[in-house]
């Protein structure tokens, strides 16, 4: 474990060189010392504690790096350190959560899965379908279960204020599970991959649901429920535009060129990560603008606490 925290320290030491020179001269040594102490502390609590610690640092690092570079009053308000930091943090959190969500389905392809047994049961019960159908359903089912759980874990780590999990978990689960339900329906009802009118309708509904989920989630994070209408509008519209563009540009390329399962999964994960980052940016900007336009004394969204 000591080796691991040592390696992590070396990587962090390298990353510190990305800070502006003046900042590095003043703080580099101290940052590395503190990082090593904190990594050692975390590693004593076990590998998961070390992993969570590294993830937290990984998320915060680019945000604070950008803050340092953007710290100039001449920039437009939305790019000033506070606002930019909050927006980036939301963007990275959503990006990571969505990317992990797409990896959740891999469990269906693990060799040890009792697929033949399930297949025999499938036929015993008189259902039609191929081995591939079962695999596909398992893939979707595991996405439904593991996806929301992974997303919840990552979001809870990044936003400690969300720890009253009972209050926020339904929103997170809905955000990630509802689109998967629609996808299952789509793959069950429509067997071909060509883009039909129905397929497009399902896709649109799926985007709208993700947007809805994002809106609810962002509102809960911001603890300002009256802003939901704004976010519900921004969520579906933004997600539709982003997803449509990425689908056209990236997923078509992947379908044409990727030959292996892993290529496809990685490609989808990348697409989801980009989608999450774009959504996070959009929601962050909407929240930040709303906060700035609130009249004095209005209980604004306290993004600083994120």
């Amino acid at each position: 474990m000591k080796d691991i925290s040592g390696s992590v320290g070396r990587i962090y030491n390298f990353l510190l060189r990305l800070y502006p020179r003046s900042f590095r001269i003043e703080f580099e040594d101290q940052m590395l010392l503190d990082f090593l102490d904190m990594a050692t502390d975390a590693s004593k609590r076990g590998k998961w504690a070390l992993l969570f610690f590294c993830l937290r640092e990984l998320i915060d690092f680019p945000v604070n790096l950008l803050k340092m570079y953007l710290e100039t009053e001449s920039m437009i308000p939305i790019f000033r350190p506070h606002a930019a930091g909050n927006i980036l943090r939301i963007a990275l959190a959503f990006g990571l959560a969505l990317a992990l969500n797409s990896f959740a389905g891999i469990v269906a392809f693990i060799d040890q899965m009792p697929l033949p047994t399930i297949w025999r049961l499938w036929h015993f019960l008189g259902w039609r379908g191929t081995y591939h159908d079962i695999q596909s359903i398992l893939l979707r089912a595991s996405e439904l279960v593991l996806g929301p759980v992974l997303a919840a874990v990552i979001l809870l780590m990044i936003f400690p204020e969300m720890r009253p999990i009972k209050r926020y978990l339904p929103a997170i689960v809905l955000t990630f599970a509802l689109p998967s339900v629609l996808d299952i329906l789509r793959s069950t009802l429509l067997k071909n991959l060509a883009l039909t009118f129905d397929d497009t309708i399902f896709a649109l509904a799926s985007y709208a649901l993700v947007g809805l989920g994002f809106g609810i989630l962002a509102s809960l994070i911001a603890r300002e429920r009256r802003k939901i209408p704004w976010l519900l509008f921004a969520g579906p519209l933004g997600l539709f535009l982003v997803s449509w563009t990425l689908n056209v540009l990236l997923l078509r390329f992947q379908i044409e060129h990727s030959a292996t399962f892993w290529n496809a999964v990685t490609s989808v994960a990348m697409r989801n990560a980009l989608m999450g980052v774009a959504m996070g940016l959009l929601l962050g900007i909407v929240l930040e603008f709303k906060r700035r336009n609130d009249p004095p004394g209005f209980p604004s969204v306290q993004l600083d606490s994120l």
Partner: protein
Amino acid sequence: MKISSQPLSEQTYFILLSLQSAPKHGYAIVKDVQSLSNVRVTLSVSTLYTTLKRLLDDGWIRLLDEVSQGPGKPRKVYEITRKGGSVLAAEIQRLDMLVSAARLRGVEGLS
């Protein structure tokens, strides 16, 4: 002395509160903030030092000295300034006012 009317971020508030009791180096601040906030606020190293830099630039804290910690490298120790103390006092007063307003309406511990 002009005090910012903007509410402090949680990180800034807890860092100032931590330094109010005694001067500390970075790692001690992280630990103290964790304890003060009941482990709710965990500062990352990058957040801690970007915040410390801003507080230094604003004159709310100052670099006190460097002290050695055993065989390791020297640690920089920070202490709160009078200006920082006033900002913290103003923030506590603001928070107190908010809570008092809720109490006045008989609202306690909304779940």
